[in-house]
């Protein structure tokens, strides 16, 4: 049976993430144009759009990763829990703890499975051995990896499969107890079975996290997200319930893109 995504009324009225009139420039090139969006807590939002449309740039605004790129200029507001994370007085490192990030290619550290998950806790100064052990177990369970690796926690993380590595990266992100997970094409390098596991995992995780996912796989966006945002040339063209976007989008540009008649 197809499980319907949440209806408008059921979506959490509390906005976890928000941007207001956000513009971003890489030097002279404008990558985001006046993007305003509100994302509810405990939902999955998918960003879709052609390559270079600004969806990954926009995703990275929510943990201020773009700050690291030279020549970036940002104006407008980006809010997490109603606090503008680009205001001067904000402690970026503290805010980044709220936001976990998972990338396209699994990027485990060349350490053991256990140490990968414990890494964030250790650099945050956590000393309690039992707390670290409990948290590693919790995070691996949340990432649906515990049963597969519980007997080989000290094996190298590089030796496990790509799908397992990606779930390990999710566990690593979860271990520091963020409330938001940003995922930039988390399943695009994985086989269909691993992709299914990641999708199932995302579905489960949204009970505890607000998830934003960038994907080129439209069916994936349709399957796992509550709301979908379509971007084109730095603009947010349409943002609506996923069910609406994939059955009857309001904008012809969205229709053309999702039906493959783009360009």
């Amino acid at each position: 049976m197809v499980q319907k995504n949440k209806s408008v009324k059921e979506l959490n009225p509390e906005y976890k993430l928000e941007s207001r009139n956000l513009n971003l420039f890489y030097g002279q090139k404008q990558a985001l144009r006046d993007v305003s969006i509100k994302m509810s807590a405990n939902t999955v939002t998918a960003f879709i759009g052609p390559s270079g449309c600004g969806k990954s740039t926009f995703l990275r605004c929510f943990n201020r990763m773009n700050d690291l790129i030279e020549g970036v200029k940002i104006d407008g507001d980006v809010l997490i829990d109603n606090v503008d994370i680009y205001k001067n007085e904000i402690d970026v490192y503290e805010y980044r703890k709220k936001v976990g990030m998972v990338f396209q290619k699994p990027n485990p550290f060349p350490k053991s499975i256990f140490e990968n998950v414990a890494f964030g806790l250790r650099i945050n100064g956590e000393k309690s051995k039992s707390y670290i052990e409990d948290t590693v177990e919790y995070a691996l369970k949340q990432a649906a990896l515990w049963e597969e690796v519980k007997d080989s926690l000290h094996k190298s993380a590089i030796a496990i499969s790509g799908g397992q590595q990606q779930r390990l990266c999710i566990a690593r992100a979860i271990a520091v107890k963020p409330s938001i997970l940003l995922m930039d094409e988390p399943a695009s390098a994985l086989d269909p079975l691993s992709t299914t596991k990641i999708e199932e995992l995302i579905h489960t995780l949204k009970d505890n996290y607000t998830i934003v996912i960038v994907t080129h796989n439209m069916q994936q966006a349709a399957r796992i997200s509550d709301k979908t945002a379509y971007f084109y040339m730095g603009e947010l063209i349409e943002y609506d319930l996923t069910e609406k976007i994939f059955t009857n989008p309001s904008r012809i540009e969205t229709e053309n893109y999702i039906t493959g008649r783009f360009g």
Partner: protein
Amino acid sequence: MIHLDRELEQLKKSTTAMWVLVQSQIEKAYKALAANDKDLAREVIANEKRVNSMELKIDSDCEDLFALYSPVASDLRTVLATLKINTNLERIGDLAEGICKHILSEEKAFDKELLKASEIQEMYDVVIEIMKDVLKAYIKEDTKLARTIFKKDEILNEINMQATKNITEYIGSDISKIEAGLNFLSIIRKLERVGDQITNIAEEIIFSHEAKVLKHL
């Protein structure tokens, strides 16, 4: 043009071909009835196999489209609507066959008085007219034209209701006419159901292009 467009175009051609065949089945059924042409009635019954095989082919093509192209938005609605239109057309084919079976079950031609009393000619004229209009609406993607059908279907419903009364009177005048009268009433009912199927098709055309569900309104 993307590959899916070519597939959808082919699907539309197949559906149109089935439509033309089904329409000709309905037209022939009327000619067979009016002229008591039993050979023509047999031809309609024999052709029903062709209608069935076309239905199976379109069903299978839709299944392939879902499996291979995962259509969304207007493409999804087109394939969903085609599936339903296909079923509606097949049922119209069944009804044409049913009418012809009634014709064959009568030894003699239906009484001219009965034909007149039942207003079957008017009913057929409306059925053929709306079938042609809905086909045109389907081909030209004209939802405005599709909407005109609903009013015309009401004419069929009225004639159908009136026919029951008229045929009852006809039977009442002579008890030996019971069998022919009941047989004829079944034909009228079938024609009225053809109108319902065409209305369903018009609703699917509107759903396909406007994403509006008119069913059960």
